[in-house]
């Protein structure tokens, strides 16, 4: 009888706290969004399930000694998982369109304004007494506007580990919402005639240029902003493996088995941070709102920069490609292409938008480095 009581006392129903129940519902919602609505399923399925596991009452999977806790400590606390993912993303990235038209890097720069505006918003809310974010918190929240999941997780793990859960969730959710968030902003800021601008075909880029580019980026990072070196170093390493043509078996494994394995464990590790006390509070609401704002501002500043460049260079740049500067590869570039086709059914912008798109990845990694330098230094 005593033993029956023990089983009952160790059961989930007996131990269930309201917060855990709510967080399990949050996990199920994430799974629903991932599976039925195709919100970045590769990350949100593991994150959502990790959230479910972390909130099983009495199982302690996210407590010291638990499986999710160990995954977090080994892979996220050390920063290794986001770095490996970034290596994989580098091995999947084609810098060809950017090399054919390097000035699209300016669009990748402009779109990072979303990051810093959001940072300002976060400290502003704190100054107003509505929230309680430190500067480090605000920096980590701002990076959501970079539309780059691994960058967000890396920065959050360094600057604001307590906010890692909501930041990762916001980052991936909004990346999935790019096709909904961006079009109205893009339409509002451009005229019909601007949207109809056709761009000249991109020149051919040689193999040697593609091999030299990641080394160029690495050396520039090494000379100017060592704090961005881990992220961009691994990114450039992956890209060099892809482009150099002599280590295809390594590049192939990085793009498949390795990134898949690490994605699963990264997701589970992030899920371990979806505990009630860290997720169910006003800060999370603030993060979700600020993240949305960050995306909007980033999109707008990218488009405005493209308009400006179009005027200064005497035409030939369709402002719709500016929004792709937020990264969210390749979805943002597809959105640019879609709106271009709406304006003119012969206007294919996809390749032109891939330049700012990958520039945005570099841009937000640079922004991440400056945040870590400024706040952590």
């Amino acid at each position, binding site marked *: 009888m005593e033993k029956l009581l023990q089983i009952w006392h160790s059961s989930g129903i007996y131990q269930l706290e309201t917060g855990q129940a709510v967080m399990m519902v949050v996990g199920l919602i994430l799974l629903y969004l991932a599976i039925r609505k195709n919100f970045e399923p590769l990350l949100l399925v593991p994150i959502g399930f990790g959230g479910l596991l972390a909130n099983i009452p009495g199982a302690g999977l996210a407590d010291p000694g638990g499986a999710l806790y160990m995954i977090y400590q080994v892979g996220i606390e050390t920063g290794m998982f986001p770095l490996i993912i970034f290596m994989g993303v580098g091995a999947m990235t084609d810098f060809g369109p*950017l*090399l054919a038209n*390097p*000035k699209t*890097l*300016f669009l*990748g*720069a402009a779109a*990072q*304004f979303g*990051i*810093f*505006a959001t*940072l*300002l918003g*976060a*400290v*502003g809310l*704190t*100054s107003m*007494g509505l929230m309680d974010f*430190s*500067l480090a918190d*605000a*920096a980590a929240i701002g990076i959501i506007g970079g539309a780059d999941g691994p960058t967000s997780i890396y920065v959050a793990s360094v600057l604001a580990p307590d906010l890692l859960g909501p930041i990762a969730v916001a980052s991936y959710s909004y990346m999935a919402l790019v096709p909904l968030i961006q079009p109205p902003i893009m339409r509002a800021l451009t005229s019909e005639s601007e949207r109809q601008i056709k761009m000249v075909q991109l020149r051919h*880029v*040689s*193999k*040697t*240029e593609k*091999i*030299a*580019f990641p080394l*160029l*980026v690495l050396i*520039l990072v090494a000379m*100017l*902003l060592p704090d961005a070196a881990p992220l961009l170093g691994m990114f450039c390493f992956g890209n060099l493996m892809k482009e*150099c*043509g*002599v280590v*295809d*078996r390594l590049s*192939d494994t990085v793009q498949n088995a390795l990134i898949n394995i690490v994605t699963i464990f990264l997701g589970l590790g992030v899920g371990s941070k979806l505990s009630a006390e860290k997720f169910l509070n006003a800060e999370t609401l603030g993060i979700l709102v600020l993240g949305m704002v960050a995306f909007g501002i980033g999109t707008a500043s990218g488009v405005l920069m493209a308009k400006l460049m179009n005027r200064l260079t005497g035409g030939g740049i369709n402002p719709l490609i500016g929004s792709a500067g937020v990264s969210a590869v390749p979805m943002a570039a597809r959105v640019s292409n879609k709106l271009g086709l709406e304006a003119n059914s012969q206007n294919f912008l996809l390749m032109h938008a891939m330049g700012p798109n990958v*520039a945005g990845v*570099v*841009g937000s990694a*640079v*922004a991440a480095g*400056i*945040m870590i330098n*400024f*706040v952590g230094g």
Partner: protein
Amino acid sequence: MQESDLMLDGLNLMMYGMGFVFTFLTLLVFATRAMSMVVTKWFPTPEPVTAKPVPLAPGFTPAQLAANDPQLIAVLTAAVHRHRQEQGK
């Protein structure tokens, strides 16, 4: 720290941050152009890298080498493409 200080820090970080991002990417634009010019001028038609026989690591079998054959991959890709078009009809 006072709240106005936090706000000030935020503004500072925004200013320096955007400044740095633009500086960095501007430098990258110029460096990239310079690099492309150098490559185009002095290494105009580089021997295709993949044409050289890829050396095997110790013990790598021919089967693994096959996985590196770009021609073979091209053929397979074409086959997949054809299949897709047939499916698309």
